[in-house]
């Protein structure tokens, strides 16, 4: 394993410190417990939004802290949910007395730790609501699983919820918007190679030289199936086909199309994939009204990508378009 790090145990702390130094006007960093908030402090009377989860998915979540999006992000160790303490501390740091929304990806660890944090924060007098993101269609949502995972669609949920909070919506409204965005969003991913967790020192899994994993999770959890490497157009057809079937899009729908890189895939390949995805949507009569292409929800240096589709209505479109100023997503200011 070769990595640009010092001690694996220090990666998260040092990266968060680096973020603070790189974005001094935007972010404020707390150590012990570790969390990141807007530099501008809590906004009195506005709903605050806190997200978090294991590290290794950067820019998620700290890269989305800033006006128009998250109020705070709580990074855990690599691929491991943070404990409740830093979540509670972040909650208190950003609470503007209008309630705090937790946006949590649907993993047992994240759900349980944020649940505990919510209990503790409520005990401290903060009103907390929680929205769980579960956009990954690779996992069947049934009583026989922990439910669908939260993956790249988290960016969409965080963006529109952030915009709703910014415009002054109340806690229940913001939570409702976030739930609606989640319900309108589906994702499926593919991996060509695995990332290497710093403290593990070896890839999370191995794929043969001519194999890809369809339906990969962002921690390298296995997906639906391993298939031989195909032209990317065929891979896009598989991923997007599953996404659209699950979402039940119909001709005339307007969507956000989001091609997300997993960390180690050249941007040039993401655009090649985007081309086919846009073509397929056109074939189905679905209008690509908004787009996003790039590495937003990664899995360390994993080579692979995911395709996310959100069915847009006028309000979601307006909230997506609203100004945002974060390290990783910025427009309108």
């Amino acid at each position: 394993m070769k990595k640009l790090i010092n001690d694996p145990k220090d990666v998260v702390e040092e990266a968060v410190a680096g973020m603070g130094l790189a974005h001094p006007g935007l972010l404020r960093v707390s150590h012990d417990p570790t969390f990141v908030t807007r530099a501008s402090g809590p906004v009195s009377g506005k709903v605050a939004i806190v997200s978090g989860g294991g590290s290794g998915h950067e820019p998620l979540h700290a890269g989305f802290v800033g006006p128009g999006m998250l109020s705070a992000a709580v990074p855990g160790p690599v691929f491991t949910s943070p404990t409740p303490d830093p979540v509670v501390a972040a909650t208190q740091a950003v609470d503007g007395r209008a309630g705090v929304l937790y946006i949590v990806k649907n993993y047992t660890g994240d759900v349980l730790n944020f649940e505990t944090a919510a209990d503790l924060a409520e005990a401290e007098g903060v009103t907390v609501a929680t929205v769980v993101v579960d956009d990954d269609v690779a996992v069947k949502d049934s009583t026989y699983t922990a439910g669908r995972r939260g993956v790249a669609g988290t960016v969409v949920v965080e963006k529109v919820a952030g915009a709703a909070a910014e415009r002054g919506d109340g806690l229940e409204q913001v939570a409702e918007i976030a739930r609606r965005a989640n319900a309108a969003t589906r994702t499926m991913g593919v991996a060509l190679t695995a990332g290497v967790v710093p403290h593990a020192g070896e890839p999370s899994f191995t794929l043969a030289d001519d194999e890809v994993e369809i339906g990969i999770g962002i921690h390298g959890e296995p997906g639906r199936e391993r298939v031989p490497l195909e032209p990317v157009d065929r891979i896009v057809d598989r991923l997007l086909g599953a996404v659209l079937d699950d979402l039940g899009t119909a001709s005339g729908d307007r969507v956000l199309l989001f091609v997300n890189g997993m960390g180690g895939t050249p941007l040039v390949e993401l655009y090649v994939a985007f081309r086919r995805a846009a073509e397929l949507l056109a074939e189905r009569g679905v209008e690509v009204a908004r787009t996003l292409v790039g590495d937003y929800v990664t899995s360390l240096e994993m080579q692979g990508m995911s395709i996310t589709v959100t069915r847009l209505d006028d309000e979601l479109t307006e909230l997506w378009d609203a100004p945002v100023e974060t390290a990783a997503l910025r427009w309108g200011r």
Partner: protein
Amino acid sequence: MTLDATWTRAFIERTADVVREQRAALVELDREIGDGDHGENLERGFSAVRAKLGQQPEDATPGQLLKMVATTLISTVGGASGPLLGTAYLKGAAALGDATELDSAAVVAFLTAARDGVVLRGKAEVGDKTMIDAWTPAVEAAGLAAGDGAEPAAVLRAAADAAAEGAASTEPLVARKGRASYLGERAVGHRDPGAQSSSLILAAAAEAAATPAAATTGEA
């Protein structure tokens, strides 16, 4: 022959030792059907627990010591196992109240409350391929042993043996909770890491009770 705070300290120390020794093995189990951090998570938690153990007041009760384990695990482990095991210790400690000597009934009450805590948080049932597959047989075996008039040490031994069998029993299962549930049939043939670590924890409890130090202290 009751168990007391000395046993509790030995139980905690042994758990920290075994978690350190088995770190790589637990990581490997979790790599197979999860995300490969279970050993890392527990080691982080129990090394924090160990560090705090020395700072506890001399007269700390078993319940106080186990509550310290609970809060430390909750605030250092993260992931799924942090809140689950943390809640186990929290509820188990609460069941002990401020007792200083634990008889067999207290041991059973501890184990039962701990298991119930995991269920409360994680909603798993036996057969879901989780740590519950170790805890529930352990609770049942402990109850039977206590009913048969066994001493606390023997109750814990019965629990530990049942947990070990329970951990092994997860191998042929498809998982219905946690990360392994994403794998469907592909989880078959792999042991659940949380069931394995829970069985190691219960083995540590039994071993701590079987050592002269713990046994004699209980008699002193």
